[in-house]
């Protein structure tokens, strides 16, 4: 169903989803993005630099979270601007006895809501709330989206 600007109101919740990231997801993102920082794939190194263990790339969380906006609007090129602050780490567990490629991993909750509307430009600012348990992982996660006027 096509999204129409006049159907939107500030504060309206648009969509929500669950995102799971396991160690294999981190390795895949490291390779695809070229971000080979070992804090994202080597526990020993991560621990030695003071982290609780391997953590997800902030850019992986940012990149995967926006998929919810793409699904809602139905067109990734409608996303004109997308920004976030990285507020908290996402430690990715590696449970004993699990296959890292099949483990459930860290479970993030993502909610998209209308933050602001601009009728003249026919754009909506979609605010993403991304949480790990009770903790906000991303803050000021905002996608500016072009919406059909009618």
């Amino acid at each position, binding site marked *: 169903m096509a999204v129409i600007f006049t159907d939107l109101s500030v504060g309206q919740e648009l969509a929500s989803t669950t*995102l799971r990231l396991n160690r294999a*997801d981190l390795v*895949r*993102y490291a*390779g*695809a*993005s*070229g*971000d080979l920082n070992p804090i994202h794939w080597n526990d020993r190194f991560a621990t030695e*630099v003071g982290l609780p263990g391997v953590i997800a790339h*902030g*850019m*992986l969380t*940012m*990149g*995967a979270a*926006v*998929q919810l906006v*793409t*699904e809602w609007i139905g*067109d*990734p*090129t409608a*996303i*004109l*601007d*997308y*920004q*976030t*602050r*990285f507020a908290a780490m996402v430690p990715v567990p590696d449970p004993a006895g699990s296959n890292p490629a099949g483990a459930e991993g860290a479970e993030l909750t993502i909610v998209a809501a209308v933050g602001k509307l601009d009728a003249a430009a026919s754009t909506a600012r979609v605010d993403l709330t991304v949480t790990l348990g009770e903790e906000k992982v991303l803050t*000021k996660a905002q*996608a500016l989206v072009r919406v059909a006027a009618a």
Partner: protein
Amino acid sequence: MSVNAALQGTSYPPAPAYAVGREKIREFALAVKATHPVHLDVEAARAAGHADLVAPPTFAVVIAQKAEAAYIQDPASGIDFSRVVHADERFTHYRPIVAGDEITATVTVDRARAAGTGGMVTTRTELVDAAGQPVTTVLSTLLVRGEE
């Protein structure tokens, strides 16, 4: 070592043009769990009016981070990469990035602030196409943790 504030305002010569490939777009889309057909299926991308596969909204980071390396790895920057924490990121798209694009990225140090043995830096990377037309602006802020 601490962040060298004197580099604020500096632009680095652009890295060689980045050739955007179909398989790289598919690989990146898979990695960020982006499933829209315009990222994966050339016919679907063309049917939607694009010249070729369309990159996901954060793909520009691949090109920007290569370019940012000129600054981050510059010994004069004073940045200890092992102590870097990503603070924020922003993409402003003027048009979609599609397979076949040749993108040139120029990095400017918008802000460089020292704090103790670390500091905070914001880079602005301007991505332009082969015709010199703007494609995307990438803003990235890194926090460099000081030594305890």
